[in-house]
């Protein structure tokens, strides 16, 4: 099966500094791949490059065989890439429900004129989206947050809403940037279960940046290790655990 | 010759724009707040000088110093008393606060002076200097020397002294500056004061040259923005260069096209630069230096 996402020789530079050098990476439908490595290893930069927030200096990024590098973030998202943000990417003055609805934006089939005049069809499209958003919130056990404004939620609640929003439109590729920060242990277990279910049932590809190594071991099929802007190892969890380059990178940093 | 004469009077006008733009730039760089009421601080500087010279009968130099000192205090008070207090509110609040303060000052000026425009007695009354066939007016000479000295003083302080380097450090990273024990709040207040005082100097310099009215500030605000945009928004040297360039461009447009168009030169500069080359005329050079 061909890879959904394919990165080849990707370089990213910030003001002359090499943030990513010559990274090759792929992601397949149904597979969960975790990206680990010390802070500053370039993991979030890689997410930013894939989703179009930073330009790449060399290499290529393709989705389903067609190049996506150089496209604007919204255009890349429109091709089926969704991501979460390390520092929180919610809309603080909107409610949980409204945030999830924003994630469904492109799937709401209502014309400008229809919305303006409140036609039956546009109302129906909106109603369906609201119902779907409520089901999604319910599925993650956060239906009580639907009408709560985000800036009054706890950090863990916000993470959960952001994940619901990211998966709402059933993207073929999901990038999760430290989704477990601030989550209580039972919610973390739920999160692992959700990620596995998403990959297993709907066949989406998941890239996961995570520092909590227990979560990575429990959730990931494959682990890619980054250090200093380069990928230094990739393989199944068991193999990574004993990889000498990985141990070196981590011990060298500890 | 006409071309050069226009350029020369443009440079004199542009020197004022440069000063105003630089003073706006100082506040922006130090606090990341764009003061949309800055023009009214320029106006306030001019009006205080008028008040002291015409109504209190003080000599011009003493009045000028008093006006600049007063505006320094006012600028610092605006930052500490108003801007600092709304950090928790909506993001757009800073700009609205600046606008509100500007209107308050303008209203106060109008309440004192009424609706008519005010001429101020001439201060710099000596004959023009001839440079070949070019005429350099007394006003232009005073402006050139005053702005020149100020710019040397400012850039010397900013780039050559340890106090200046501390300022640069805070501009770079507020958190870093706070960590090494710099009082960032006080710094912001001082920089607002400096910006207001520099703007006031612009007002003091134009006060004897133009008719004064409370609405004076709006023009300076837009011209300051045009200068900043031309020079690359946030660049101190760019603001100065942009101001001079704008002054010259206005005179050429007025001299060769129509005097009606002098006023809209700044508007067109802003729109065209931001539409075609948002980093400003020298934007590329700045990027290469890094």
């Amino acid at each position: 099966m061909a890879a959904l996402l394919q990165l080849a020789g990707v370089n990213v530079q910030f003001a002359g500094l090499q943030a990513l050098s010559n990274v090759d990476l792929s992601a397949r439908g149904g597979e969960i791949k975790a990206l680990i490595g010390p802070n500053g290893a370039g993991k979030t930069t890689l997410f930013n490059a894939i989703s179009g927030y930073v330009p790449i200096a060399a290499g290529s990024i393709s989705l389903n065989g067609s190049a996506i590098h150089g496209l604007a973030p919204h255009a890349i998202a429109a091709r089926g890439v969704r991501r979460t943000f390390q520092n929180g990417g919610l809309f603080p003055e909107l409610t949980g429900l409204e945030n999830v609805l924003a994630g469904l934006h492109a799937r709401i089939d209502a014309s400008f004129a229809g919305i303006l005049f409140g036609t039956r069809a546009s109302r129906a499209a909106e109603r369906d989206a609201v119902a779907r958003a409520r089901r999604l919130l319910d599925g993650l056990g956060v239906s009580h947050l639907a009408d709560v404004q985000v800036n009054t939620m706890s950090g863990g609640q916000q993470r959960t809403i952001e994940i619901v929003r990211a998966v709402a439109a059933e993207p073929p590729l999901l990038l999760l940037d430290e989704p477990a920060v601030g989550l209580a242990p039972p919610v973390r277990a739920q999160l692992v279960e959700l990620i596995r279910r998403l990959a297993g049932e709907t066949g989406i590809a998941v890239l996961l940046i995570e520092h909590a190594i227990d979560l990575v071991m429990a959730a990931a099929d494959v682990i890619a290790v980054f250090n200093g802007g380069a990928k230094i190892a990739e393989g199944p969890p068991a193999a990574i655990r004993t990889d000498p380059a990985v141990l070196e990178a981590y011990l060298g940093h500890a | 010759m006409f071309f050069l004469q226009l350029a020369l009077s443009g440079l004199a006008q542009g020197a004022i724009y440069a000063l105003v733009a630089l003073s706006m730039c100082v506040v922006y760089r130090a606090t990341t707040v764009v003061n949309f009421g800055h023009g009214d601080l320029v106006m306030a500087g001019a009006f205080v000088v008028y008040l002291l010279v015409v109504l209190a009968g003080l000599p011009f130099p003493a009045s000028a110093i008093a006006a600049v000192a007063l505006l320094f205090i006012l600028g610092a008070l605006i930052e500490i008393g108003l801007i600092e207090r709304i950090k928790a509110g909506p993001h757009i609040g800073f700009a609205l606060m600046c606008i509100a303060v500007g209107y308050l000052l303008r209203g106060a000026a109008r309440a004192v002076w009424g609706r008519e425009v005010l001429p101020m007695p001439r201060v710099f009354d000596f004959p023009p200097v001839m440079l070949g066939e070019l005429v350099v007016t007394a006003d232009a000479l005073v402006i050139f020397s005053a702005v020149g000295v100020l710019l040397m003083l400012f850039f010397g302080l900013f780039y050559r002294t340890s106090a200046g380097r501390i300022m640069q450090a805070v501009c770079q990273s507020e958190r870093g500056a706070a960590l090494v024990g710099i009082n960032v709040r006080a710094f912001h207040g001082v920089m607002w004061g400096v910006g207001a005082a520099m703007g006031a100097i612009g007002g003091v310099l134009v006060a004897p040259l133009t008719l004064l009215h409370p609405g004076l500030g709006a023009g300076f605000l837009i011209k300051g923005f045009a200068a900043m945009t031309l020079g690359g928004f946030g660049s101190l040297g760019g603001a100065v260069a942009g101001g001079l360039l704008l002054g010259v461009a206005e005179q050429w447009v007025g001299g060769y096209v129509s005097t009606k168009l002098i006023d809209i030169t700044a508007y067109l500069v802003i729109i065209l630069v931001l539409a075609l080359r948002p980093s400003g005329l020298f934007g590329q050079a700045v990027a290469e230096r890094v």
Partner: protein
Amino acid sequence: MNGQTPQHALAHRALGTRVFYAAPLLALVIPLFANPYTQFIVNLTLVYVLVTVGFNLVLGNLGQLAFANTALFGIGAYTAAILMAHAGWPFWAAIPPAGAAGAAAGFLASVTALRGIRNYYLAIVTLAFGELLRWSYIHGEALSGGTDGLTVRHADFFGIALESETARFYVFLLIVTVIVKAVSNLMRSKIGRAIVAIRDNELATASLAIPTGRYIVLAFTLSGFVVGIAGSLFAVLIGQVIPESFGLIELILHFAMVLVGGLGSLFGSVLGALALTALPEFFRPFPGLYEMFFGGLLIVFLLIQPRGLSALCAKRWPALRDRYYRER
């Protein structure tokens, strides 16, 4: 930790809808109690409801500082006045072009957003663009009448001559109700959500496949349309269109109405217009007091109640909180 159940939310929305329609229905009886002067103020209030609703779309919902609002108000007024005075159009036919001209100006004021111009930069572009428009009102004598302006005499609305304040009131009320309803529809849809999402976090908005630059321009265009319509009503109400009406003195009033009413709140826009429309008249005899009052009012609200009167009301009556979705 228990939020509102959907049933509660539905009940709230039903109440909100009732409030929405009750207001214009109750307003129908105003002419029974008003003398021509108070009726004029009521009509002016309706004009400012549209001004504030339109400006708030950009200032509050999009969260983008902008200065061109009075110029957009002006272009609506001039378009209507030119069509009526020069070309002899009836009032009703001049309203859509006024809105279209406002929309076109809103589009032009913000089109640099497609090239990545944002925040302060975009605000400064709107400042320059607005001043450019105002310059053209003064210097485009052939069309605009220069500083003398244009006089609008006979306003004809589908055969009804709008000679009295009462006649104007009913026509204005109809137009304002229809437009506020349409804006409300827009706000409670994917379009309204996209606009407030950009205000809250533009990077995240783009990650949801929402083309943010286009929505910024759309918000400005819609805003220009609504404010342009307001301009055409203003032209007919005042009977005269002069450049002075669209200057900096007017701008502070627009800012104050949006902020006092409540940034980003449709209900607040109505409140802001209701609260402030009558005030400028009182300051007319005292030069400077007008600017001091509205500057001071903005400062007080920014310090004490930065979310405006609508937030105070919403705290007491949750049904009045602005929502960005609809469930029925």
